[in-house]
């Protein structure tokens, strides 16, 4: 029997005997779960993107443009909560991690397949609770995604339910992390050593530890907010002798490590794509592995750099500023490694590579502007201004978002066995990048000029920048819509993808597209070095 005749996982339900929708909703197959996450995550991304666009259109002109101040405050809260908890944190790990981590490890599934299904249901439940909170008891919170006390304790909006939704989503993220850690330790192919694990899986492993260890802090904090509101304990409320700064410490103790949960998998994606399209080993494999672990560890110790203006002690500011600059080092090492991989390579331009290169540029801008925020003196001026908004969108959207788009284009042929149109993909990527720059660069300037964030209205000197940002937002959304339309059109054109369309050398490219249920019909052989392109080059046609 040849590999091509084995039915794909689409045709083979697991557990066997399930049919129709039940084959999806009760599945244990990590690949089906990856796709179920894909559609759910894309739904939320679309919702939050539209809300984001409405926010920028509101800010396009001074005064009221399309919504009231109350709606605006709920809109930026909703945009933040959905993007953070339902798109950026779960995005790459839950979709591509679920689908490809077991395959890259040469195994047939994650260690706890049923728990994996349960995590998906928690994710869906969290989303449903967020929707319910929109229409019950005072409506969606107007607190910002940070739920700062004492405001979040006093507001009449439906904070408890939304906070509980975030709690449930945290559980889902934690269990996925647990599953990945055990899978990496216990289910690797027997002859795969630690230094033979592909970098995407390494990045998920580092991420999973942060998910597992940091998420309980936010879970407890969110429950305390609910208790504070319902039982009036007085833990955070200064009117009852509580300490609102304690809340900020607890909140950022999770939420800062969480930004590394958001970016590390994206870095993993780029570390796969650059070598594949270069047909060349990643430069400094071990340095990238250790920098991932270094970012995960050091990134957990810098949370209070969100709080320089909060009134905490100058000693704390000194320590957190110093640690923050140390996190910059492993990040810089990764960027240098990616660029050096291109040196003397044999580069084939393709949509995934274009997205990865745009990622490097946008993420570098985000990282470098982070230095302004890490330094104590400069932070004070731009803290809580549009400068911060631009900075974290460059890292979270230009970084994680574009890595997510790169991953979609890189693994789409593997997941669905279909190729998409390249020309449209290039146009979409270019449009999105140009729109992105027009959208966020003005915000840096607005922040330096002194425009605070979360402002419904603004002074006349900020009008130009906000107008430009709105135009950029429209271009950006147009590019992203075109990108998704192009990917979805592949279901209509049905151009079949070969097993290895790009010439990749990690294990997912050795199995058919889409893969069979058990991934590997035969025990796969593990390369001594995971990015050895000798075989690929030997088989490649000489040009």
């Amino acid at each position, binding site marked *: 029997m040849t590999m091509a005749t084995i039915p794909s996982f689409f045709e083979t339900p697991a557990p066997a005997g399930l049919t129709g929708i039940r084959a999806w909703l009760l599945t244990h197959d990590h690949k089906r779960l990856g796709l179920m996450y894909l559609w759910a995550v894309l739904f939320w991304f679309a919702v939050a993107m539209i809300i984001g666009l409405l926010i920028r259109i509101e800010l396009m002109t001074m005064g009221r443009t399309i919504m009231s101040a109350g709606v605006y405050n709920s809109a930026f809260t909703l945009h933040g909560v959905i993007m953070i908890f339902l798109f950026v944190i779960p995005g790459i790990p839950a979709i591509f991690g679920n689908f490809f981590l077991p395959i890259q490890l040469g195994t047939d599934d994650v260690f706890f397949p049923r728990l994996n299904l349960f995590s998906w249901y928690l994710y869906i439940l969290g989303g449903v609770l967020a929707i319910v909170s929109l229409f019950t008891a005072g409506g969606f919170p107007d607190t910002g995604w940070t739920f700062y006390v*004492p405001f979040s304790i006093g507001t009449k909006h439906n904070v408890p339910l939304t906070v509980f939704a975030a709690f449930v989503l945290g559980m889902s993220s934690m269990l996925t992390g647990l599953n990945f850690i055990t899978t990496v330790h216990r289910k690797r192919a027997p002859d795969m050593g630690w230094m033979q694990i592909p970098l995407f899986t390494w990045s998920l492993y580092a991420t999973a530890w942060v998910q597992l260890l940091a998420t309980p802090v936010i879970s407890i904090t969110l429950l305390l907010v609910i208790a504070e509101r319902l039982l009036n304990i007085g833990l955070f409320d200064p009117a009852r002798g509580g300490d609102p700064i304690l809340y900020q410490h607890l909140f950022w103790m999770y939420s800062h490590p969480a930004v590394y949960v958001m970016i590390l998998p994206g870095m993993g994606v780029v570390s796969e794509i650059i070598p594949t399209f270069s*047909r060349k*080993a990643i430069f400094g494999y071990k340095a990238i592995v250790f920098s991932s672990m270094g970012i995960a560890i050091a990134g957990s110790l810098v949370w209070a750099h969100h709080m320089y203006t909060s009134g905490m002690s100058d000693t704390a500011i000194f320590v957190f500023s110093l640690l923050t600059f140390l996190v910059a080092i492993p990040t*810089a090492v990764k960027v240098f490694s990616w*660029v050096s991989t291109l040196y003397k390579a044999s580069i084939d331009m393709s949509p995934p590579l274009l997205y990865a290169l745009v990622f490097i540029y946008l993420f570098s801008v985000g990282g470098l502007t982070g230095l302004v925020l890490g*330094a104590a003196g400069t932070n*004070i*001026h731009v803290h809580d201004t549009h400068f911060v908004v631009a900075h974290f969108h460059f890292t979270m959207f230009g970084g994680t978002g574009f890595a997510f788009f790169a991953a979609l284009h890189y693994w789409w042929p593997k997941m669905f066995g279909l190729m998409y149109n390249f020309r449209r993909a290039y146009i979409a990527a270019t449009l999105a990048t140009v729109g992105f720059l027009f959208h966020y660069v003005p915000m840096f300037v607005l922040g330096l000029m002194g425009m605070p964030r979360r402002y419904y209205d603004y002074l006349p000197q900020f009008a130009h920048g906000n107008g430009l940002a709105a135009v950029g937002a429209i271009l950006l959304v147009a590019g992203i819509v075109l990108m998704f339309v192009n990917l979805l059109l592949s279901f209509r054109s049905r151009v079949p993808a070969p097993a290895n369309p790009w010439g990749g050398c990690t294990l997912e490219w050795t199995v058919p597209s889409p893969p069979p249920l058990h991934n590997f019909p035969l025990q796969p052989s593990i390369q001594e070095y995971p990015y050895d392109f000798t075989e690929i080059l030997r088989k490649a046609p000489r040009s």
Partner: protein
Amino acid sequence: MDPVVGIDRAFWYILVVSAIFLTGITLVMIYFVVRYRRSRHPQPADIRGNWRLELLWTVIPTVIALSMFAVGWKSYTGLRTVPAGSVEIQVLAQMFSWIFVYGNDKESENLLVVPEHTPIKLNIESLDVIHSFYLPAFRVKADAVKGLPTYVWFRSGDPGEFTILCAEYCGIDHAKMLATLKVVPRTEYDAWLEQEGE
């Protein structure tokens, strides 16, 4: 040295070094992609790393990052060290306005009047939720928290008017929580202090 000068130097230092890095990385990346495209360079080299280079690009950014930290910290100490003989004014933040209380118990709302060329120390506290006192022209910002008094200081300089904003989201009229800083000559300030409150 005026703290504003220190802060602005730190901004320039970090932004210029960052711009050099960004331009370098981007140009090298584009050059490699064009120079080593498959049609022109079909046979890639097998390079897996170079420990000397990797050590170099770990050490140099570390030194640069530490220098940025030092510059940033030094400029921050300027914001914290209040000179002797400064005029002290109490700032109370509430949803959605600023109250200023002067030494002689005179109060004003959303208008802060200070004498020219004088160090001004503002003691800041909130009456309800968290607000943030933000005076961009003098690069100062401090969260106003109930029960946690804090301060900022600045050297007032020449007469003029400047905007004070609330930088910590505080509710429906957060964006309207603005005040004006009015720097006036000393005699005008003394006369204003003695006027009846509004």
